[in-house]
């Protein structure tokens, strides 16, 4: 589709890039800027597809050398076992260093309290921030995309955070050309979003093109689930199902991977990458609308969490 009859070919050819090549080049440029300007960068790695694509891009950006970053997983304690297995295998395969910030530790120590609804997503902010402070990370790569949510649509590629990880949308630095400004004071850090300009469909197309392996929960499989707030949640000892919620076996897949308590599955028979891409292309719901309970809390749920230091 790079050539359309009516397209003037004078500049589109031969020196044109496909949209995936353009997005890949932009992301690689961002990784290399951070490697050049920061002392201790880290990649937030959840084992979700966006963080997997980030790691893939980082590996390409510095090949044939090793990536000059470590990984950080914020472990809610409500993880899908398939994802943890994938995480550990990936860390081994590439000889990476993995840091873990554990929400369960904070709950066990009484620093954080379990919420009545059992959702642990909002509890990730404190362990994340303290790990960043303790390890003195100065750049933290996140897989956030601007197409995910309207507060994220206003996020910069380089997003300055104070010592509490707080985001102030009114005081963001304008980002001009490809000149990223990573200046920060001691104690502050910069969140960096190399996939800012990618859409969900771009991520999947790139996964297909690059033949990137994903955890199996992204593909259709039989699973015991129950319905809560209009979403299919996986049954488990994290707190579901409750009385009146019935477990049933359905053919589902996950469109996003997060905390089990608030990540919903979608009915799907897509067992291959091509089938997943076709399903997303035809979907009339955003991935967060379809699968995230936490974003339904209020119109500004994401903005509020971001201000407090969420990803």
């Amino acid at each position, binding site marked *: *589709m*790079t050539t359309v009859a009516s*397209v*003037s070919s004078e*500049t*589109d050819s031969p*020196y044109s*890039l*496909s*949209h995936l090549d*353009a*997005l*890949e*080049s*932009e992301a690689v*440029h961002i990784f*290399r*800027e951070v*490697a*050049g300007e920061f002392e201790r960068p880290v990649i937030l790695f959840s084992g979700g597809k966006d963080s997997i694509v980030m790691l893939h891009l980082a590996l390409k*950006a*510095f*090949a*044939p*050398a*090793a990536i000059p970053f470590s990984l950080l997983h914020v472990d809610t304690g409500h993880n899908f076992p398939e994802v943890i297995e994938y995480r550990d295998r990936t860390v081994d395969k590439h000889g990476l260093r993995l840091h873990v910030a554990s929400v369960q530790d904070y709950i066990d120590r009484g620093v954080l309290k379990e919420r009545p609804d059992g959702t642990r997503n909002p509890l990730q902010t404190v362990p994340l921030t303290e790990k960043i402070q303790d390890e003195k990370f100065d750049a933290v790569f996140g897989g956030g995309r*601007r*197409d995910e949510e*309207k*507060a*994220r*649509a206003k996020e910069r590629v380089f997003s*300055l955070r104070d010592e509490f990880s707080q985001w102030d*949308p*009114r005081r963001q*630095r*304008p*980002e*001009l*050309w*490809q000149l990223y*400004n990573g*200046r*920060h004071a001691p104690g502050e850090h910069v969140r960096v979003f190399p996939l*800012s300009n990618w*859409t969900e*469909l*771009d991520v999947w*197309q790139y996964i297909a093109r690059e033949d990137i392996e994903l955890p199996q929960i992204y593909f259709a499989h039989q699973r015991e689930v129950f319905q809560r707030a209009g979403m299919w949640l996986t049954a488990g000892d994290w707190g579901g199902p409750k009385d009146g919620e019935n477990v049933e076996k359905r053919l589902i897949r996950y469109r996003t991977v997060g905390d089990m308590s608030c990540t919903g599955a979608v009915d799907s028979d897509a067992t291959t990458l091509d089938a997943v891409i*076709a399903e997303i*292309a*035809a*979907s*009339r*719901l*955003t991935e967060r*609308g*379809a699968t995230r309970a936490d974003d339904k809390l209020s*119109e*500004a749920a994401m903005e509020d969490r971001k201000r407090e230091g969420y990803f």
Partner: protein
Amino acid sequence: MSTITTGELTEVLSETTLLRFATAGSVDDGKSTLVGRLLHDSKSVLVDQLEAVERASASRGQDAPDLALLTDGLRAEREQGITIDVAYRYFATPRRRFILADTPGHVQYTRNMVTGASTAELTVILVDARNGVVEQTRRHAAIAALLRVPHVVLAVNKMDLVGYEEQVFAKIAEEFTAYASELGVPEITAIPISALAGDNVVEPSANMDWYGGPTVLEHLETVPASHDMAHCHARLPVQYVIRPQTADHPDYRGYAGQIAAGTFRVGDPVTVLPSGRATKVAGIDLLGKPVDEAWTPQSVTLLLEDDIDISRGDLIVPSKDAPATTQDIEATVCHVADAPLTVGHRVLLKHGTRTVKAIVKDIPSRLTLDDLSLHPHPGQLVANDIGRVKIRTAEALPVDSYADSRRTGSFILIDPNDGTTLTAGMVGESFASPEPVKDEAEDDGWDF
């Protein structure tokens, strides 16, 4: 609505090209309606987003869904009913992927428009057919010209309110084209539309037989996505030196960067600036794959024949086409910070991958974009001001004229104390310096 045909699917699965474009305008011009219609008619607004907008509109007592709520992402924006910041929107057709930088149009948001235009290959300027070219239109044209956006679309909106009259459109298009051409806008496409009624946005209008050109979306889909291409000066700012020092790659030494302009080929004689050392391109790694040729905006790793000292911040250029290096930069700038820029200000200047100390030596003039009037020696520039500055850098920089290269002719000024991005700069002459301010003592002759 949830079905997709096999033909569409094949197109969705394949790769397309990417176009970055910007819109500038205010609610009065119908910008939100236009953007909303582009997103909606290209099926990029999904059901849950539309439901959220409908809920929010209803809770505000509005009858119809307010599509501006799709892009106004911050609480303050929704509460005040304004767009404060640049909002990035993403949509695709089978022909192209689009990144839209949606910016507010009023004068106090000039910095946002400049930000959106800095990476745009096309900008859409809206006018109300009833009002024609007004002060704001001239400002938007000036910003597009200053930032050297290659393509400008003039969308003459609300044609339904002027009876779809060809004469009304022709007069506005003529006046705008004359004005924008004089400022140096290279290509202007005027399109008569009604965003509200849908005329010529996605579908051709049945009400304007006299118009034979493309709709807005058709134009966006087919306009050449131009980068600084093969005919331009090749430039590679070095971001990072890749040295694996492993058993497999004991001697690998590659210079990683994103090609800012032009093309590089294996065998090209190149010079490294600012040192001036010359060598040849021995190899090009395109993210793990060796290639003979690479071009902007590809991220590559260059391997060179000679082992010379190169580090982050250096610029690799063709030996036959090297820019002069200088410590004295004259530029047109847009001040983007709340605190003013003053003569004597000590700053950091980031150009390509190099950041150096600098001092603002002079602010010869400030420009009012609405009427292009010059105000000599304003003493300072405040937020959203456009002006000329003279800067002295602590180290010599290989700068291009912005007219020649948007990437290697641009820079930002940074406050060394708190890291704030202060000012966006474009090197060399522009219409903002119709009569270059001559200072005999410091005029060291730009050689572009």
